């Protein structure tokens, strides 16, 4: 088997047994990237040379160094809204097109400590606002399974890079489904941990109370390995949790007997695509055969989640994006008469349409006189969604749903209709609203396009999510399939 098809775990074992050198690994992935990247465009910044240099240093360390990190020599792609020191971090926005940060995100620090190799920064919808990467200010990433289709978003670049075998694993961020939806579209494993499990320091904020860094991989076990590295309290992020982090790999390879899995009827409406419904319910049955118990549950408030989300997320965004004013860093318009005009021209030209739309939505929702009717009301809905999930979790250990209402859509199909675009996150958004951990794993194909299964866990119970996902993966082995590029 070619090296680029191997999992993180396999590559790691080959390196540690000194069968291959990090530079050989990186070279293999660079070759693969040179071959297929022109077709899919997953990277905004590809760092092939730097990665190779880094790998060569690690070749020497492999001989000399005893205590090598858990990710020693593993190439990893990072979504371009995660801050990397001395490496351009654009958020796929013109306003940060040439922004080179002088600091690292905490997750990058943690990966570095474990000796990973950074391959590059992947494409996304501008500031993570979107579901297709079509809102990237630079280009649209293509779905490796069908180059006429979107990879999903906002972490479309990371999802595509893992799907196409440019890297074994990648990091993304998920605010309303931005990891799980593209994972589903690209046929890879996408994991969003509990809010607070992974530090947000250095994740460029879109909606601070919803944003969470997570992982892409082609196996659940790789997710567990990566999660072991990036999880845990960070003094730089007040919202990060000091809950103890279990060894997530302990949940791999366990049986799932007696685990209660809830099937919320609201996530299987009449309007849901028949094939998707069938694939997901069959998946549930497979798990039942493995000893899990299926329980029908109801989550009625979740139907308001999109509406409430599109108040809360833009409200926070309108404030989070105020710092891009052209004063200290990033793009600044050159022709202005006064301060007011500098601001307005800079922001008008620096931001794309979707970002502006959300800034306006959020500004409106927070305005005095509207705050109670919109923001406060939405927060109440959010609290109800959370309580409803907690009520359900008294009866079940996990909740199973489709990740998306349908498979990847065509490029350009939904760009004229933002509401339609927003609805592609209908099954993922409520999870962010409640701050829960959830995974999307490949569950089959519809018209040769991947379909994702979503498993939602209790707060900080990532372990059970990984356990069941791993079991499911091992029954079906969808993860061993690669798109034909």
């Amino acid at each position, binding site marked *: 088997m070619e090296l680029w098809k191997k999992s993180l775990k396999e590559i790691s074992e080959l390196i540690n047994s000194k069968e291959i050198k990090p530079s050989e690994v990186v070279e293999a992935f660079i070759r693969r990237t040179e071959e297929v990247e022109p077709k899919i465009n997953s990277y905004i910044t590809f760092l092939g040379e730097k990665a190779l240099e880094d790998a060569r240093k690690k070749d020497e360390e492999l001989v000399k160094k005893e205590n090598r990190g858990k990710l020693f020599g593993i190439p990893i792609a990072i979504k371009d*809204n*995660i*801050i990397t020191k001395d490496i351009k*971090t654009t*958020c796929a926005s013109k306003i*940060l097109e040439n*922004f080179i*940060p*002088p*600091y690292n*995100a905490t997750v990058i620090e943690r990966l570095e400590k474990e000796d990973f190799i950074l391959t590059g920064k992947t494409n996304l919808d501008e500031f993570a606002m979107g579901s297709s990467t079509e809102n990237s200010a630079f280009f649209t990433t293509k779905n490796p399974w069908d180059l006429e289709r979107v990879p999903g978003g906002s972490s479309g670049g990371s999802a595509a890079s893992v799907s196409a075998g440019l890297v074994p694993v990648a990091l993304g961020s998920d605010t309303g489904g931005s990891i799980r939806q593209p994972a589903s579209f690209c046929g890879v494993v996408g994991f969003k941990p509990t809010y607070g499990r992974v530090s*947000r*320091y*250095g*994740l*460029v*904020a879109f*909606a*601070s*109370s919803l944003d969470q860094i997570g992982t892409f991989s082609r196996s659940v076990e790789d997710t567990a390995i990566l999660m072991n590295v990036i999880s845990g309290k960070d*003094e*730089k*992020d*007040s*919202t990060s949790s000091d809950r103890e982090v279990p060894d997530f790999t302990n949940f791999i390879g366990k049986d799932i007997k007696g685990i209660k899995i809830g099937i919320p009827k609201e996530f299987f409406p009449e309007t849901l695509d028949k094939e998707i419904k069938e694939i997901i319910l069959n998946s549930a049955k497979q798990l039942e055969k493995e000893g899990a118990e299926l329980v029908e549950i109801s989550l009625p408030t979740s139907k308001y989640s999109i509406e409430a989300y599109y108040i809360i997320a833009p*409200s*926070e965004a*309108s*404030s989070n*994006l*105020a*710092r891009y*004013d052209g*004063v*200290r*860093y990033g793009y600044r318009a050159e022709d202005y008469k006064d*301060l007011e005009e500098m*601001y307005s021209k800079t922001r008008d030209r620096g931001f794309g349409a979707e970002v502006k739309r959300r800034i306006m939505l959020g*500004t409106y929702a*927070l*305005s*005095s006189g509207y*705050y109670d009717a919109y*923001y406060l009301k939405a927060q109440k809905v959010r609290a109800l969604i959370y309580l409803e999930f907690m009520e359900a979790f008294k009866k079940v250990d996990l909740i199973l749903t489709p990740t998306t209402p349908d498979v990847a859509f065509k490029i350009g199909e939904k760009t004229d209709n933002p509401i339609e675009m927003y609805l592609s996150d209908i099954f993922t958004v409520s999870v962010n609203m409640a701050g829960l951990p959830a995974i999307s794993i490949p569950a089959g194909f519809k018209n040769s396009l991947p379909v994702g299964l979503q498993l939602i866990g209790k707060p900080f119970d990532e372990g059970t999510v990984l356990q069941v996902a791993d079991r499911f993966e091992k029954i079906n082995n969808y993860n061993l399939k690669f798109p034909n590029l």
Partner: protein
Amino acid sequence: MEFEPVIGLEVHVQMSTNTKCFCSCKVEFGAEPNTNVCPVCLGMPGSLPVLNKKALEYAIKASLALNCKVNELSVFARKNYFYPDLPKGYQISQYDKPLATDGYIDIKIDGKTERIRIHRLHMEEDAGKTIHKGKYSYVDLNRAGTPLMEIVSEPDIRSGLGARLYLEKLRNIMRYIGVSNADMEKGQLRCDVNISLRPKGSDKLGTKVEIKNINSFRFVQKAIEYEIERQKRILKKGEKIIQETRLFDEKTGKTFSMRSKEEAHDYRYFPDPDLIPVRITKEYIQEIKNSLPELPDEKAERYIKEYKLTEYDADVLVADKERAKYFEEAISIYSKSPKSIANWIINELLGKLNEKNIAISDSPVKPSHIAELVELIDSGDISTKIAKEVFEEVFKTSKSPKEIVEEKGLKQVSDEGEIRKIIEEILDKHPKEVEKYKAGNKKIMGFFVGQVMKATKGKANPKVVNKILNEILG
């Protein structure tokens, strides 16, 4: 119609923490521009604030010293507006759930105590500074993120003097508890004034005017006094006050409109999702309460009770932390005459220091000197008159009073034999005056006393001189 001014103050106090409110950058006055900065206080993408625990402790301390109720739950909120020296495009502040509420400060006007209620105290971060020079504006973000307390009074103040006394007391309390130097010149204490007039006896509020950026206590008083007269003139003409923001011109002593182009801002406050709500336990509040030093009012009360000082003297001494410290140090060295020590400090030392513009902590006359001086008077070693001379010398040389008395031979003569000898000599020299005295001119006694003092260079104990003169002359 008689009008009554209704005045409320919004005061910003910079806390004297070593580091900023939400990052670990140094707080430093006068550093090279943009040197005490980091991704957090520069508002770089992805950076996150973390609350400085010391700042919280200081703010709780201040809340308790201002008799506020400290809320067990308070929330940081974002105040959104654009300005070049506001790096994030919002200021982290507190809005509907402030740290503390419902406090007060007592001030004394003409011997009468007035209570000025405090509406709320909340924490927030400072902005940077914008310096306009010619064609360009320069931004210095060293100050951005410095921890502030905003202290909002109820509209309980009725005069310019009241406002000044409130501010002085507030500054004094901040210094006592050591949370801020509260130096207005250095911008560590900033004050905005809200002022309106209403017919006396009415409980409705008139249209208010805000006066911003006043930079000394004296100017606050002046600005208010001017503004009261201005508003009176307008109202007496039957015209209306325009709600606006005004500035104070130090040169003319007048306030003027700050182009009321500044429309009503909508700051779009909402809870900051990057910071968790601040929860403070009752135990922690109690712990801080227990650690508070004695505050000016308590101190004054103790001085009156324990040392039998007058209310006036006690108030003067506690009005400055260093002054009170000075006094207490002196009486710890000589405890028998606190009242005399207070008198020496208030009547001699303070004036002299003021005249030479020296802080009491740098005084050439140390607390031990005052103590010694009073002890010398009490023991009859020197007279009060000589003591003043000694004091002047101590002020000049910083030598101890005993040393000076010794050196200059200023010790008072109380030895009766010695004094009797001198008196006899003087009486011998002035037979005419003795005759006059015996003929009934008792006033001439003063002449003899004067002669004795002259002969002894003022060192003779006047009590003894009088006694012996009376004995001899009958």
